[in-house]
Each structure stands twice: as C-alpha cells, then as structure tokens.
C-alpha cells in the first residue's frame, strides 16, 4: 500500500488499539509530532506503551498524553528534564512504568526492528545497571550486551516535506528518530510542513523512502501543493 494523504491528524491516528506500542519521534521538541500526539489523545486509545527519547515536555504533546492517563509504560533514554513534571509525578506515584535505554541502543534497537535483525551485540551499557540480567559475551576483547529489536504498532513522526508517494525529507536536527522509527512500526503516520508533487524531491536526497510511510498530514490545511 502506498502512502495516503490524510484529511486531518485524526484520520492519521484512526484505529489505534488499546495496548498498542506507539513510537513517537523527536528529541525534546525538535521533530516532535505534536499535532499527531494531540490527535492520539482525542482518539482515545488506552494502556499504551510509548517509545520516545524523552518522556514529555511541559503540558502539551506527549506530556498531555501521559497526563490523560493513556500510557502504561514509557521506553525512553532521558525522561528527566527541567520540564518533565507530568512524567515525574506519574513515575513517583507509581502510575507509570519506565524502561530506560541508552539513546544509541534505543536507536539501534529501532533500526534492528526495521531491518529484520533478530538481535545484536553492543558494547554500550556493558557492566552498568542497564545491562543487568541481559546476556553478554566478550567479542573483540570487549564485553558486549545482547539487545533485541523495539517494534511499534504505530509510529508518529514529524518530517519537513513529503511527496505524494510518501518520500520524506527532514529539517536539520529534527531528523533525529524519524527515519529509524519510520522503519520500525506497522503503521507510520507523518506530519509534515508541506506536501509536494511526486517528482519534486531529489531522489538522491530522500531520507525516508515512501515504502515506510502510510499516512501523511500537512500541518496546516492547504499546505499541499
């Protein structure tokens, strides 16, 4: 199925099941698909597992999803930030599970899911509390930890421009987790600044090929052209 341009963000997150694992792009607010997360709040799915680098900032976007009580578990590298009070409160009162994963292992586990890699050995985290209970092996005189893929049912990402076939380019460091998450979820919804005609993007510069993209929403209505 090639990518579909959605009428609005609600259409892009329609059908998300209770208990789904949702990958949410962004590093802080750069690349954070705020409008799609807002749509997911309206959509109402419960008991979600959210995979994202952070655990929400301020009171909007991912923080609002958490505040609405929709999230059972967060898998992330860096929940604690100056403005992560929503997560902090839920965590301290035992109302949310947390799996902390080193940022590079998180990215590589997402890539592995998208790339059909069953598991991989990485030196990151070896000998630390985050590798406790995990299989290790010495390879090349270095202790390495066996890590498994992280897959999503849905990925919500933000890109800069899409063409009508779903090819994506990003903007600067807002690229961050978008391209790997786009490969790692059964359904991939993307909010973009604008949609252009197919053939407009330079084939050499496409970062996420359309094969990975299912649903596209331009952030502002009318930003299709």
């Amino acid at each position: 199925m090639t990518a579909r341009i959605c009428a609005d963000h609600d259409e892009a997150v329609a059908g998300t099941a209770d208990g789904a694992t949702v990958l949410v792009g962004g590093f802080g607010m750069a690349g954070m698909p705020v409008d799609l997360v807002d749509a997911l709040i309206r959509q109402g799915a419960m008991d979600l597992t959210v995979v994202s680098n952070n655990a929400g900032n301020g009171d909007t976007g991912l923080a609002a999803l958490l505040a609405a009580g929709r999230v059972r578990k967060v898998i992330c590298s860096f929940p604690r930030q100056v403005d992560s009070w929503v997560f902090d409160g839920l965590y301290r009162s035992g109302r949310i599970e947390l799996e902390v994963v080193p940022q590079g292992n998180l990215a590589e586990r997402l890539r592995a899911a998208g790339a059909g890699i069953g598991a991989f050995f990485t030196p990151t985290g070896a000998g630390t509390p985050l590798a406790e209970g995990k299989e290790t092996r010495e390879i090349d005189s270095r202790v390495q930890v066996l890590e498994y893929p992280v897959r999503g049912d849905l990925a919500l990402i933000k890109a800069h421009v899409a063409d009508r076939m779903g090819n994506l380019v990003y903007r600067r460091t807002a690229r961050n987790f978008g391209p790997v998450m786009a490969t790692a979820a059964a359904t991939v919804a993307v909010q973009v600044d604008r949609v252009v005609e197919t053939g407009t993007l330079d084939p050499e510069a496409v970062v996420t090929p359309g094969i990975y993209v299912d649903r596209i929403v331009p952030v502002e209505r009318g930003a299709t052209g």
Partner: protein
Amino acid sequence: MSPRTKDEIAAAIARDIADAHPGGAFVNLGIGQPTLVADHLPPGSGVVLHTENGMLNMGPAAHGEDIDPDLINAGKVPVTELPGASYFHQADSFAMMRGGHLDVCVLGAFQVSATGDLANWHTGEPDAIPAVGGAMDLAIGAKRVWVMMTLFDKQGRPKIVPECTYPLTGLGCIDRVYTDLGTFEVGSGGVRALELCGISAAEISARLSPLAVS
C-alpha cells in the same frame, strides 16, 4: 488451454499482484524471467519496483541515450528512474528487504519443495563457482515470495519436489509457484494446484509423484 508462455506466466503474476494490492505494492523482481512481470502490470497499478542494488521506483530498461552506467538494476542492466524514485546504500536496501517491507518478491528457481524451501543459487556441481548475490536475502525478504519457473527441467524432471536436492537458498520461504503448466501453492499445507494450464489434474499428479497435489 495450452501451457503458458513466459509472457503469459508473467501476466498472471502481474494480475495477481495488482488484484491483491489495490492500493499499490512494493515489489522486487528477481534477475531473469521475473523481470518480465514489469511489462504486464496494469496501468495505474501503483506498483513500485525495488532493485536491491539501491533504488525504489525503478523504471523500464534504458535504451540509447537514456543509458547511464550509474543507473542499473540488480542484473546490471541499465534502467530508468520514475518520478518519486529514491536511492539508498546497500545496508539500507537490504534492511528494507530483510525487514519485510516489500509486499512481493518474484524469483526464478531450480527447485521448490512442497514445504516452500527454495533452491535457486547453486547447482551443487563440484566445479561450479558458488555465487549467491542477493538470492538468500530476497528469499526471506518480502511478505510474500513467489517463484516463476517451468514446472519441469529440460530433462523432464519436476522442479516442485518433496525435498530440494540442490543447495538451499531459503527454508520455507516460498508460498506460490507460477509455472508454464499452472500455479501452485506450497507450504505447510503441501502442494495445491490453484490453476492448471494445458495439463490435467491426473497428469500433474502422475508427473509430480510421489508428491501429493491437492
């Protein structure tokens, strides 16, 4: 109905791809006969072709002035680029394949077993130089992997077999086989004829024996 020509087999595959994927499909066509499938895709099918050497939305073969030595398919034939194309490196291209993002892959074969094992890379002859290319990646690298081949080899021996005697390319990876004499499902349920062309069910059963064909 007589046995199918290569083009008729390719047309049957093209039609089945289009029918099964009304919203478009991402397809890899193996080197050799499977490339014929591209010529039979209905206009507007929305099928996007992947070539494992690093491209999506590959166009038809290039001729004359359109030939660009930097733009080739997996069979090293010069091809063209369609609007919406993208290029990527080998690790990304095989990640796309291994990760199960392609809808259909069509391959040639020496043998397919009743349970869907594939042998298509090596005749096993002692002086043959082994060369696998992307065959093993393609065999496990799509949601559905189909084979296009003649049902019998030049010596008249069946190529759908109880167990492959040639070296394997992949285990239980094939679910459908398109041949000159018909289309067959293989897999955990054994061999089932979906369509026969120019041959009776009785004759197929006799010639594929001891395989059971349902």
